[in-house]
């Protein structure tokens, strides 16, 4: 048994390994995985006693690794290094025999000739026995060294075999052969620790996988436990598909692969040198990353979403007169359409009819059963009709070119009404309008001391409607997260992302209908309904509604989750609010509710059950 007891290794006060603990039992084959610089090789050097840990210790067969004499250890442990260069013209046989040097005197029952013959046979180098090492290829040389390492511990039944990237220079046959040899030896009682780069080989041959990241042990467990696409992405930054082979039940990993556009390598060239048009670059990017939202592709290309669309003017994009209220009033006539609203962290879509257009001050409202929107139409500056990949849509942008809202035609839409609408509102001058690109002013957070806390608490406790909250923020000059932080006792409590997840899953399980508010600068979309499916895809949490609506939020972006309680005339209203690192609201969750009716008891219960 090999026990590694909280070892750390540092050079110049920089930790290459930090607090690593694990143990390996007799007959176990452990693969060490990790990106370059994760600490794999350092760990191996400590295990083979080439380096001393700065802290902690390694215990091998109930004896401190330091307490072994070199000879004693040599008979119990053999190491295959990643690089082995032989500069003098030794023959293959001579090299393999070197593994037996320490043995020759106190010879056990097996003769050296037999060991030599067996190990060379197994490693497939028998036919090279008399060849000089200098004339062999890298892979052949590595096999000879493997034979030497095996020869060293061949007559031991329970030795420790340390392999540092043993197969990197070998061809496919010997990669598998080598690991199969190691695996077979574990059945005999060997312990094998093996640094690997090829993740599929680890899945296939290792009993256990230890994944290192930044010098720490990140995961440790059976290959099928550790090798999930999420873990692999965390460790290596590569998206993968992980399957289980139905025949062998082994985990198989297929990397998604990268595609790069050579145009990005020339970013330092003037735009005129960049021969490909924005539209071509956009299309090529979108083909590579079909899942990436428009705003992200725009960011990569260094433009705004609106500018990408402008590139299609005169072709598949038509500029409409920015008479927003007039256009919006006509949407109901389109019949069933899909409404999409997103911000950087969350995206909501829902199919329905834009019913009950109304205006309340600056705010335009659609209070339909399916489509429930608050629109700040004064922010809406650009309206486009877009035909893209067979889908027709109306898209709205603000003065900075940021996408605010999209309306897609569906099978249930009246296309003629759409065409008439476009014809009526088509701008005469179809050249791209100038964007103002006003600098987004970061709202400076006031110092807490400048705020009249008791007044604020009183105002919070006297709220009659949740809508008043925004006015409250304005009145006291608070940012949202600051307001939550300074809230009256038990009115706002920070909870973990995990408990948020539990709550939402619970809502889906016991059928508690919820309202999800997805907002950006120009629009709030409220999807109300019963969740029927909650699942993760990478960092994205997908919430599907029974009505066919969908809300997707990026959990990696979630910085804080708050449970907020606001008083109204109908009693307290509970909500879960998710915020990003900059204090931006990602999404808000309420129980389904209508003015004049108290909040759902079941929603309150779910919160109490899952948050406390």
């Amino acid at each position: 048994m090999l026990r590694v007891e909280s070892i750390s290794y540092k050079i110049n006060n920089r930790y290459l390994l930090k607090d690593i603990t694990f143990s390996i039992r007799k007959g176990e084959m452990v693969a060490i995985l990790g990106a370059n610089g994760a600490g794999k090789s350092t760990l191996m050097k400590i295990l083979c006693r080439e380096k001393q840990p700065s802290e902690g210790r390694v215990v091998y067969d109930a004896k401190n690794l330091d307490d072994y004499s070199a000879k004693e250890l040599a008979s119990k442990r053999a190491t295959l290094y990643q690089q082995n260069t032989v500069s003098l013209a030794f023959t293959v046989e001579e090299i393999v025999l070197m593994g037996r040097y320490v043995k020759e005197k106190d010879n056990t029952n097996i003769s050296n000739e037999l060991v030599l013959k067996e190990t060379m046979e197994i490693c497939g180098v028998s036919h090279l026995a008399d060849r000089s090492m200098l004339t062999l290829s890298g892979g052949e040389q590595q096999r000879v060294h493997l034979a030497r390492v095996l020869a060293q511990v061949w007559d031991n039944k329970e030795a420790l075999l340390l392999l540092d990237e043993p197969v990197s220079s070998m061809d496919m046959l010997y990669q598998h052969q080598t690991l199969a040899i190691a695996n077979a030896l574990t059945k005999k009682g060997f312990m094998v620790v093996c640094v690997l780069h090829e993740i599929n080989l680890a899945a296939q041959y290792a009993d256990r996988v230890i994944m290192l990241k930044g010098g720490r042990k990140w995961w440790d467990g059976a290959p099928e436990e550790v090798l999930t696409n999420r873990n692999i992405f965390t460790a290596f930054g590569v998206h993968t598909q992980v399957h289980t082979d139905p025949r062998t039940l082994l985990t198989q990993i297929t990397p998604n692969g990268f595609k790069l556009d050579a145009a990005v390598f020339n970013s330092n060239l003037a735009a005129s040198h960049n021969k490909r048009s924005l539209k071509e670059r956009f299309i090529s990017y979108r083909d590579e990353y079909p899942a990436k939202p428009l705003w992200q592709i725009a960011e990569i290309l260094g433009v705004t979403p609106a500018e990408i669309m402008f590139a299609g003017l005169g072709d598949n994009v038509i500029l409409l007169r920015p008479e927003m209220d007039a256009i919006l009033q006509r949407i109901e006539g389109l019949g069933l359409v899909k409404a999409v609203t997103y911000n950087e962290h969350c995206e909501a879509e829902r199919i329905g009819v834009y019913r009950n257009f109304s205006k309340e001050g600056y705010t335009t409202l659609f209070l339909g059963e399916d489509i429930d929107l608050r629109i700040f139409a004064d922010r809406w500056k650009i309206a486009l009709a877009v035909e893209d990949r067979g889908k027709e849509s109306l898209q709205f942008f603000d003065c900075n070119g940021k996408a605010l809202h999209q309306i897609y035609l569906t099978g249930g839409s009246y296309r003629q009404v759409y065409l008439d609408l476009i014809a009526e509102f088509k701008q005469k001058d179809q050249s791209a309008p100038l964007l103002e690109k006003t600098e987004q002013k970061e709202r400076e957070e006031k110092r807490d001391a400048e705020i009249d806390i008791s007044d604020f608490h009183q105002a919070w406790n006297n709220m009659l409607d949740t809508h008043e909250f925004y006015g409250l923020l304005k009145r006291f000059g608070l940012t949202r997260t600051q307001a939550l932080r300074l809230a009256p006792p038990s009115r706002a409590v920070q909870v973990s992302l995990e408990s948020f997840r539990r709550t939402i899953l619970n809502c889906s399980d016991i059928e508690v209908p919820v309202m999800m508010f997805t907002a950006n600068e120009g629009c709030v979309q409220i999807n109300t309904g019963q969740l029927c499916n909650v699942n993760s895809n990478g960092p994205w949490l997908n919430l599907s509604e029974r009505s066919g609506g969908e809300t997707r939020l990026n959990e990696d972006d979630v910085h804080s989750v708050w449970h907020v309680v606001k008083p109204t005339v109908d009693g307290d209203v509970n909500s879960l609010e998710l915020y990003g690192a900059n204090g931006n609201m990602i999404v808000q969750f309420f129980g389904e509710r209508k003015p004049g009716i108290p909040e759902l008891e079941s929603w309150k219960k779910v919160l109490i059950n899952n948050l406390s």
Partner: protein
Amino acid sequence: MRNKKTIYTCLTLGLFIVVVFSLGLGAMHIPVLDVITILAKRIGINGFAAADDLAENVLLHVRLPRIILGVLVGAALGISGAAIQGIFRNPLAEPGLIGISAGASLFAVLIIGMESFLFVSLSEFLGFYLLAFGAFAGAGLAAMLVYQFSKTDGKPNVATMLLAGIAINALAGALTGLLTYTADEQQLRTITFWMLGSLGGANWDMIIGIAPFILIPVFLLPLYGKGLNLFAIGEHQAEQIGMNPGKIKNRVVILSTLSVGACVSVTGIIGFVGLLVPHIIRLIGGADHRLVLPASALLGALVLTVSDMLARVLVAPVELPIGVITALLGAPIFLYILYKDKKKILQ
């Protein structure tokens, strides 16, 4: 396994023949039969026809010490060349090339320059010890410097090793040159002799003086054959097999610099023997140091005896410096090896 016995037999036989043959050659020709007679008489076997006294005197007091010195120095250069190549894990390492000989000769020249301060005549018994120790110190210092410089990531790097060798050679050469300016005529002649190498000064005192410095390494170094073999696959790898590379390295370097220093102190710099002899052995018998080390000693002795013989007879009665002969023989062979194996050597 290659036939070790044949190699040893051939080398020993060859050495014996060459020694006997070269005892007879020189300014005064002594027939082989006479040589055998005189030697036999010395060890108490009479019954051969007596040779004349002059021949006996020349043989016993001029030729024999000179040839024994040649055998000793050749053996020392051969075996230490092989050992140092093993330690540096590189067939280009040679005492002359990487500055060890230059270091030894610099210290030897220093001692010669300070002869008047040392109250010891360097032509006496004690003087040989002093010179040998001085040369050993110089050789050891140079070896240590080169090894430290050439080590990158725990293994010696060939390019750095050769560059460090060039630098040390240049430095030692410059300092030696500086000393020649302050030297008087007699010292100047001695110093010149150092730079080219010669077995000319051989006498029995000298041989008894340096014999231990050469014989001890020649008999001890072969014990490190296995250790040096493991060195060839890397220090770390050797450690994993259960050797202590640090210990082996220290001992081998001390023993080889000791013998090289002793040689340089009595014969000056004789190049190429330490480089070529192990190469030839490896070509014939493979890289196993358990063979290479003793066989290099034998072949080194043989090569140096032949070279000295040529130095004496080629332009007799004048003598060529032996360094000239070894360089004339060695340089072309060295170039041939470079041409043939350049890819293998400088990896």
